[in-house]
Every structure is written in structure tokens, then in C-alpha cells.
């Protein structure tokens, strides 16, 4: 280890790429955009012009440290700390600059993060996640780290330091609706998932037991999966509208051609294939000897399923559920197009008003939600994988 390696070997490849991207972003792209109001085109502003001298020095130094750590340090803990410190200082600088640019009491002008900021923070985020991956935290640790990260972000956003940023301005205007759409989003994504699990799990077990059923069921579900979501919403509109018209009782329950009903049905249909297919694959991989021994020792059919087959297939089934949950969280956004609600409502409203900040108010929470769901379900999958593959 003490032997000197050639210089090119000492430089971390991923680190070099991220530093190059970050440096280009800092040099060429604006970190801040200043707009007279929410739909006016913005003019670029430099962050360093707006910070006090000590602030500029702190920001410059932490970014330099992060770059050096990315390039030269192999210890993942150091890389992680350097990246997180840079993210924190960069975010605080942004909040501070927005405050400086905004005259007190002015609710019209907008200060938004520019492309330079976004690219830099994504590079730093990649550096941090890469460092975390190298540390190989166990399933429980990953969920804890996620919870800590979300807590810090929520506390920071609630502290008021970022209130003058454009996205937070949009949030302040829409705070009531935000909570409502968030609930709607989660309800649609989780509700359809739960409904799909209730139907798909037994269907998967049946398909495993009856090979003749398998080809037919998987074929139909595959076909459903190939229909684009917008087209499926459209296909469902006509029959649902007719149903609501024919049975006013259904209409009173909320069934109509547009809104949450077609969205929920479409999401439910899309959710079936990943869970059924993964259940079939998971059960198919269970050792036939274990099943034979279980039956031979006197377990009933239900006991074999509950105590041997399902536990051994659980990692595969959870992988299917993870696919569905992440897919649902993303697809609920599109459901807003037909009045299904959720964060997508902000996205489409923002597109309609050419208000990019409103689009981000819908898009960023969706991404965070999908990412969090993936982390939590991956951890769960690992916890059930007690048997080495």
C-alpha cells in the first residue's frame, strides 16, 4: 500500500467527472435567476456578488474542499461529509441571496435557483450518494439516514431561511392545497397499491399452481401494461361516464368519467403485472425439495404456502411491490390531467401558466416521495432476504 501509485491512479474517476461538471456549471451557468414577476423571463445573477465577504470565502472554501475530496480522498466518510457540508453551505447561500435581492414586503418579484445551482447541487448529491453506497449501510441504517435527511430538509424549509425563494413563494400561496394534494397523491398511490396486492398476490399464487392459467393471465396483464397511461385514462372515461349516468348511486360515490375513479382504476390495472409476475417468479424459485419435505412432514397446503413458499418468495414479491409503488407515485402525477388530483395538479397548472416554479412545486415532492419509497422498500426486501441467493 505504501508504494507510490501513478498520479492518474490516485484521482477518483467518478469524482473527476463530477468535479468537471460542477466546475463547468459554476463557470458558465447562472446560479441565480431574478424575475420581476413569476412568469417573466429571468435575468441571471451571480451568487458571490450577493454574499458578504466571509460568506463568499466560506462558500468557495467548502466547494473547493468537496472538489478535492471528490478527486483525491478514498475514505468514503470524508467524501460524504465534504459533499454534505457543500450542499448545506450552497443551500444557505442561496436562501441568503434571495433575501438580499428581495425588498422587504415585495411579494411579486421572484428569485429562483438557476441552472448553475441545479447542476452543482445534483453533482454534490451524486457525490454524497456514491459515498453512502461505498459505506454499505445495512437496511435499518439506510431508512434511518433517509429519515434524518428528510427531517433536516423539512426543518430547513420551515426555518424561514428559504422563504424568499421562488418555489417557497409558490408553496406559501398554495400551502393549504399542497397538504391536500399530498394526501391525495399518497392516497391514490398507496390505495391502488394495496388493492393491487390484495388481488395480485392470490392471482400470482394461482398462476404458480396452474401453469395453464399463467400464460393467459400474464398475457392479458402484459397487454394492459403496453397501453400508454393517457390512452388508458381515455379508454376508461367513456364507460365510467356511462356508468355514472346510468346509476346515479355510483355517481354519488364519486364515480365519473374524469377525476379520481378512472385514475385509480388505471393505476390498479398497471400495478397487477409486476406483482403477479414477481410472485410467480418468486414461488417458482422455491426449492422443490423444501416444498416436498414440508408436505411429507404433514404441513397442510395452506401451511406450506404460508410457512415455506411465501417467506422464500418474499424478496421477489417485495421487489414487485417496490416497482409498483415507485411507478404509481410517478403515474399519479399524470392522473392530474384528468382531474385525479395529486402533485401533478401543480405541474399541469404550472405548465398552463408558464410558471416553472409551480411545476417544480409539484415535481420535486414527487421525486422525493418516489425516492423515499424505493429506499424503504429496498430495505424491507433486504430484511426478508435471509437466505443467500
Amino acid at each position, binding site marked *: 500500500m505504501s508504494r507510490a501509485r501513478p498520479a492518474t491512479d490516485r484521482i477518483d474517476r467518478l469524482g473527476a467527472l463530477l468535479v468537471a461538471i460542477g466546475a463547468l456549471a459554476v463557470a458558465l451557468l447562472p446560479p441565480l435567476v431574478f424575475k420581476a414577476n413569476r412568469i417573466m423571463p429571468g435575468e441571471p445573477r451571480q451568487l458571490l456578488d450577493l454574499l458578504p465577504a466571509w460568506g463568499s470565502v466560506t462558500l468557495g472554501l467548502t466547494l473547493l474542499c468537496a472538489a478535492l475530496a471528490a478527486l483525491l480522498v478514498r475514505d468514503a466518510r470524508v467524501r460524504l461529509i465534504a459533499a454534505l457540508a457543500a450542499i448545506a453551505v450552497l443551500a444557505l447561500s442561496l436562501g441568503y441571496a434571495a433575501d438580499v435581492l428581495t425588498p422587504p414586503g415585495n411579494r411579486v418579484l421572484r428569485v429562483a435557483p438557476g441552472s448553475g445551482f441545479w447542476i452543482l447541487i445534483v453533482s454534490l448529491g451524486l457525490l454524497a450518494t456514491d459515498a453512502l453506497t461505498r459505506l454499505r449501510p445495512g437496511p435499518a441504517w439506510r431508512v434511518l439516514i433517509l429519515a434524518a435527511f428528510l427531517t433536516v430538509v423539512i426543518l430547513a424549509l420551515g426555518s424561514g431561511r428559504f422563504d424568499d425563494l421562488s418555489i417557497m413563494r409558490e408553496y406559501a400561496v398554495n400551502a393549504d392545497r399542497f397538504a391536500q394534494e399530498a394526501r391525495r397523491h399518497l392516497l391514490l398511490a398507496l390505495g391502488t397499491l394495496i388493492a393491487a396486492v390484495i388481488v395480485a398476490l392470490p392471482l400470482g399464487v394461482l398462476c404458480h399452481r396452474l401453469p395453464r392459467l399463467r400464460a393467459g393471465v400474464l398475457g392479458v396483464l402484459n397487454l394492459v401494461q403496453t397501453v400508454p397511461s393517457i390512452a388508458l385514462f381515455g379508454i376508461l372515461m367513456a364507460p365510467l361516464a356511462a356508468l355514472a349516468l346510468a346509476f346515479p348511486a355510483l355517481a354519488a360515490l364519486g364515480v365519473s368519467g374524469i377525476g379520481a375513479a378512472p385514475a385509480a382504476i388505471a393505476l390498479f390495472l398497471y400495478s397487477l403485472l409486476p406483482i403477479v409476475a414477481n410472485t410467480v417468479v418468486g414461488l417458482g424459485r422455491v*426449492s422443490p*425439495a*423444501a*416444498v*416436498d*419435505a*414440508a*408436505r*411429507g*412432514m*404433514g*404441513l*397442510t397446503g395452506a*401451511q406450506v404456502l404460508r*410457512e*415455506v413458499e411465501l*417467506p*422464500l418468495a418474499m424478496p421477489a414479491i417485495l421487489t414487485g411491490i417496490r416497482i409498483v409503488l415507485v411507478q404509481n407515485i410517478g403515474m399519479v402525477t399524470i392522473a392530474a390531467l384528468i382531474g385525479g388530483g395529486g402533485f401533478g395538479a401543480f405541474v399541469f397548472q404550472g405548465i398552463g401558466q408558464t410558471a416553472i416554479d409551480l411545476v417544480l412545486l409539484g415535481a420535486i415532492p414527487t421525486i422525493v416521495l418516489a425516492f423515499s419509497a424505493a429506499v424503504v422498500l429496498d430495505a424491507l426486501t433486504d430484511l426478508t432476504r*435471509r*437466505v*443467500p441467493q
Partner: protein
Amino acid sequence: MIQIEQLCKQYGAARVVDDVSMVIEPRTITTIVGTSGSGKSTLLRMINRLIEPSSGRVLIDGNDTTAEPAHLLRRRIGYAIQGLGLFPHRTIAENIATVPRLLGWPQARIDERVDELLRLFQLEPSAYSAKYPHELSGGQQQRVGVARALAAKPNVLLMDEPFGALDPIIRAKAQEDLLGVQRKLGTTIILVTHDIDEAFRLGHRVAVMSQGRLLQHDRPEALITRPADPFVSQLIGADDKALKLLSLIAAGSVAESGRVDGPSVPATASLRDVLSELVWRGAAQANVLADDGSVAGHVPLASILARGRAQA
């Protein structure tokens, strides 16, 4: 006692098991030997109704096996198979506890039984009970598989190629262990194998099957000296019939009284081993040693040769 009466299994036009009748004495080992596709596994699996017979019946201690639900019947019969089928997501202790748990034994009794079985199979409970199957060697897993089958103290144990996956040395040890355990517990064992040597080594009685039919069910010596069917002679082999016969006889059982000049052999050694020893040493007789090492008698070469001779 297990009575198998005119048992048949038919799949479409194919008769996998064809009119098999046999009586299995309690506290014995019966080996069922045959080529693959001979119906031997199907016959075994019809005893605990993993496969339901097309016709015929099985009586265990006089009771028809169809008198109770199949899963309750199976809990009273031990079952061990090739590849073991240990549950990979359960610890060794949990694996062994499977049937006692199904039977609703109190936890304290289950724990006690698991420890007792692990010790019986030379696995220290403190070291092994919390381990998972993949952490054990093939031979250890095999012992756990048999221990699990014996957990609820079944009177009958069915084994389907239980040593099939083991290498020869571990396999010989596993066979030795099984004989020891059977002597100790007196379990009635029915063991399916395709290996004629294994069938002879373990079986008090050997059943030979071919194409679904039971060709002969008798003591091993009888199969060698009086084969009922050309297939039986073929399976046993023409070359070393005398040696096979000698390998079935323990030196202790034929020892004559008196001490002689010559090599010493343990009483448990087969006459085949004694013959080999005499040829190797150029001796004409061997002393037979009892378990405590004292001389129990002797075996002359001529007596060995007489016992290997074809009987008219």
C-alpha cells in the same frame, strides 16, 4: 407392522406401480432398490399418501392409512428425502422443531427434544441450533435432515435416496450413523435407493423393483443365493456374489471358541474384511475381538470359504 396390499398407481395408460404387496416387520430396515423409473419412489410416497394409490391399500399397525386426513397421517411418519429439503429461511432448531410444533408440543418439550436430537447426531446444540442450513456442511445438513424426520418420535421413517448427494466417505459415515440410530430407537425404516451396495448394507430385508413390479422381497443373503428373477441376479452382479455374501456376515456371529495364532479382527468386521485380512497377511485363521478388546474366539479360513460357497 406395515402391510402393503395390491397397491397400484396408474397415470393414464402407464402403470408406475403394479400390484405390489409386501409386509414390513416392525423395528427393521427395508430397502427398496431399483433403477430410475422402477416405481420405487412412487411406492414409498404412497405409504404416507404424498401420492394417492389408484387401487390397493396400506395398513400401518392394522389401521388403513386412508382412515385419517393425509396431513395428520404424515405427521406420525418421518420423511427424509434426497437434497434434504431443509427450510433455508429457518434455523437448524426451527427446522428440527417442524413436526413437534405442528403437533402442538409445549415449547419446553420441543427445545429439549431438539437438543437431544442434535446430540444424537453429534451436533453440539449451543453451536448449531441457531445456525441456518447454508452454514452447515453437506454431511451436517444430512444429519439435520434425518434428525428433523425423527423429531416427533415416529414409529415409521420413510427415506428417499437420503444419502444421494453425499460423497462416498461421508456417505459411509451417514449409513453407519443411521444403523446406529435405528438400533437405538427401533424405528421401522423404509429406504429407497438405486445403489445395490447401500441396499445390502442397510437393509434387513431388500425389495427389488423393476417396471413397477416387486420382483423379490427377502433377506439380502436370499437375494444372492436364490434370486427370483434374472433382473435380480443382474442387479446384484455376477462377479462377486461370494464376496457380497461374506460381506453380510459379521465375524462375531460365526466365531469358534479358542484363541489361535494369527491377526485380530473386531467382532463387527464382515467375513469379507476378515478374508481380505487373511489373504493380505498370508494367515489361515484370525482371532475375533470383543468390544472390550478381549479375544472372543477365532475364525478359520476354511469356515469363511464354506460360507461364501453357492448353496444348492
